[in-house]
């Protein structure tokens, strides 16, 4: 509670010896929850109270991480989604702020999303969802890493080691920009940076046998609408095959999915493609895992990771 009572103020122009006239009383105020996206330090408020799943979204700048978070919220704004029902959020104010550039009130001719700065990186958006299948509520914390931080992770081991939030996450979601897959000048770089970031995270132990990793090909609507979209689809299939061969054995779970978080012409509902993922984000914890299968093949390039796995085993 913040007391806002104003103290007595000297009367303007009055004699310094004259008794001060009390200012009109200002009612005291009570602070309400901020409602903004949570700082990392605030997460225990939710995590300490009820079982909570943490989903970390990574990917290069403009790959659609924040748009994906906003689109899930927008989907609930119009209907129950993926068998889940909206039951509350401690970050409604933050969701609304983050969704602004996609709304008519922004005055923009086409929807946009505010770029996540390094300062805003790792902020957490909260959803409380009711799951009819198991008749229980789930707390979900969705957090996105800024493109800048993502680039640092790709470039520097030390930056990667600081990302302990990924090691603690129940799910790590890596976005691959579908727009880049369409462009023959950019697609190989998109594949390489995905490969590099996964390898970096594995070698530093940020991802491991408890990790559940989803690789999402974002902006899939662009590929679907492209007359030459089959080329991008084939390339995405190749990327999936190669990443699965190289990394799936080191994670508790690895999935791939094409998504359209927000189609600018509105011809697809928000968060299309996420319906198959969201229930498992809610239900599956990194603390509940299957025994990973380790193969000798493909491990030769991941010596540091091997040592980490051995240490854990």
């Amino acid at each position, binding site marked *: *509670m*913040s007391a806002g009572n104003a103290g007595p103020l000297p009367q303007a122009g009055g004699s310094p010896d004259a008794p001060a006239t009390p200012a009109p009383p200002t*009612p*005291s*105020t*009570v*602070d*309400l*929850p*901020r*409602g903004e996206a949570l700082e990392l330090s605030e997460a225990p408020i939710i995590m300490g109270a009820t079982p909570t799943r943490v989903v970390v979204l990574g990917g290069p700048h403009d790959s659609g991480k924040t748009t994906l978070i906003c689109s899930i919220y*927008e989907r*609930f*704004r*119009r*209907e*129950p989604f993926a068998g889940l*029902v*909206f*039951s*509350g*959020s*401690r970050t*409604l*104010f933050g*969701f*609304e*702020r983050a969704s*602004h*550039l*996609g*709304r*008519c*009130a*922004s*005055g*923009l*001719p*086409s*929807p*946009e999303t505010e770029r996540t700065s390094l300062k805003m990186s790792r902020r957490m958006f909260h959803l409380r969802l*009711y799951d009819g299948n198991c008749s229980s*509520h789930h707390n979900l914390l969705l957090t996105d890493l800024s493109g800048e931080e993502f680039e640092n992770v790709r470039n520097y081991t030390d930056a990667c080691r600081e990302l302990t939030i990924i090691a603690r996450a129940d799910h790590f979601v890596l976005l691959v920009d579908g727009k880049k897959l369409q462009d023959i000048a950019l697609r190989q770089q998109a594949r390489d940076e995905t490969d590099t970031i996964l390898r970096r995270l594995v070698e530093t132990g940020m991802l491991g046998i408890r990790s559940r990793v989803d690789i999402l090909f974002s902006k899939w609507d662009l590929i679907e609408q492209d007359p030459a979209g089959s080329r991008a689809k084939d390339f995405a299939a190749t990327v999936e095959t190669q990443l699965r061969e190289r990394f799936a054995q080191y994670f508790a779970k690895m999935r791939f999915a094409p998504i359209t978080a*927000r*189609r*600018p*012409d*509105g*011809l697809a509902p*928000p968060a299309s493609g996420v319906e198959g993922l969201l229930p498992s984000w809610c239900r599956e914890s990194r603390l509940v895992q299957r025994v990973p299968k380790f193969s000798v093949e493909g491990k030769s390039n991941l010596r540091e990771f091997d040592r980490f796995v051995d240490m854990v085993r």
Partner: protein
Amino acid sequence: MTTTEGCHLLIGLPATGKTTFLAAFWYVVKRTSYGRALHVDALPDNLEYLNRICDAWLKGETQERTIRGRVHRAAMRLRNPETNHSCEAVFPDLSGESFGQHWAQRQWDTNYDTLARTASGVVLFIHPKRKDDSYNIADVARAEAILREPSDRNPEAAASGATAQEPVPWDPLKAPTQVVLIDLLQFLVGEPCCHPRLRVCVIVSAWDLVEKQPKMPKRWLETEMAILYQFLTSNPQIIEPCVYGVSAQGGDLADGQTRERLLLEAEPVNRIRVVDADGQASDITEPMRWLIA
């Protein structure tokens, strides 16, 4: 005979019919000849506010806007003729702007805090024309495509003169109504009030506007305010919801013919239209009867 006490918050954004509802409700409960309807045991000592709003309602006048920051405290002792249960009910009438400020400023004053912490129920007011006033650009684009009236810019972009480089800054007061209402309820069932369980009666006001559509109040809420409906119905441990459609003044008073028709009613209570969640006719005290039961 049993007697209880209860403070019932009237929550709603501006012009959602809170005061009109209270005026019509007061008119009904101070008379004793309406079957199952609640009635007052005795007139309260201070009737200045209730008389003022009731007079305006009887004259078919639009209620004066409640001044922001001012709380009109309408107290009355209500009796349920069926159960003989008596309740000392308090209905604080606060301006809709104040509720908007609670959301936007993330604080409320200590006077309201006391009321909120002692509340035993909530009446949540929604005007059907303010169901959700925050459209997505993508949804507008889709609607334009369906109507085959494409435009280069969304209407607010055209009005504001904004360009792609200069978005209009975010204004929390323009957030969707249903989102604001959810947060206002979360202040009650969560911090700072932490009510373990709360009855929430949703009043869709100006129901005469909705009746032209073949929807019942529950169905209307589910489809038109989807996320609020989800919130209300998925928290049975902490929220017990119900919904009514209410036309407390009976029609649009700005329309001369409608106003005359309403004023010609021999008995003012016949202006009021109330339907329960499934569309069955009811009386204006039914929502309160449910709330104080």
